[in-house]
């Protein structure tokens, strides 16, 4: 089965979904990302869905799961690049992805992740001994 590649960049993992994923492929991505977060000690995950023409409830649930799993593993997930037609359809479908952080594009998503890393770093630094 074809798998979605996961790239490592410093403390971040980057995923660009460029194919119309079938359900088993989406589940494999969820598992692969969870393992890579731990294996690489990643602090952030950026998922670019700008190539996706459709996000249905299954893919939406996968994005929510990845966000929740990464939270538990002390990493932040940001989903970027959602097309406007996809956003409209997801909300009408009844999925609001409330637990998923989003940004309009890769650049803004990276800013968000770096800001949250800096925040985490400084709060550790200032923590009482």
């Amino acid at each position, binding site marked *: 089965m074809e798998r979605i590649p996961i790239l490592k960049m410093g403390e971040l993992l980057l995923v660009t979904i460029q194919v119309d994923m079938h359900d088993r492929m989406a589940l494999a991505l969820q598992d692969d990302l969870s393992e890579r977060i731990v294996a690489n000690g990643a602090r952030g995950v950026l998922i670019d869905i700008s190539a996706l023409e459709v996000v249905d409830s299954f893919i939406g649930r996968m994005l929510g799961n990845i966000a929740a799993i990464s939270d538990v593993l002390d990493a932040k997930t940001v989903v970027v690049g959602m*097309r406007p037609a996809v956003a409209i*359809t997801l909300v009408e479908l*009844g999925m609001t992805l409330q637990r998923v952080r989003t940004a309009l594009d890769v650049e803004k998503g990276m800013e968000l992740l770096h800001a949250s890393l800096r925040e985490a770093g400084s709060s550790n630094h200032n923590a009482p001994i």
Partner: protein
Amino acid sequence: MLQSEILQIRSSEQVVEVRQAVRSRAADLGLSLVDQTRIVTAASELARNTLHHGGGGTMKLEILNNGNRRGLRLTFEDQGPGIPDLALALKDGYSTTGGLGLGLSGSRRLVNEFSISSNPSEGTRVTVTKWK
């Protein structure tokens, strides 16, 4: 009625083929980008139901030409166990497979016409239409 075709739904790869066929016909028909996305998303939800609840089945895709109105009609059919309580199955959040329970209720909101019939001895048929 101008044309129709029938696609098999027996695997998650074929659910992807359903999405792609519906996308292509919706674009040919000249549906807006948002309406294309709505009908493709509804097709994806319903095809997944056919696969997981119905044990596989088919989708019939028809281009409708009703006077000056054109539309896309999709009919999903399976010979599975059927749905015992349709009203319950159409509720947001009701799921028998641990999913989000948005497949039927959500796809109903994405189309112009929606009908469903289900019989324990015959399976389930869902028909949706999106008009241009």
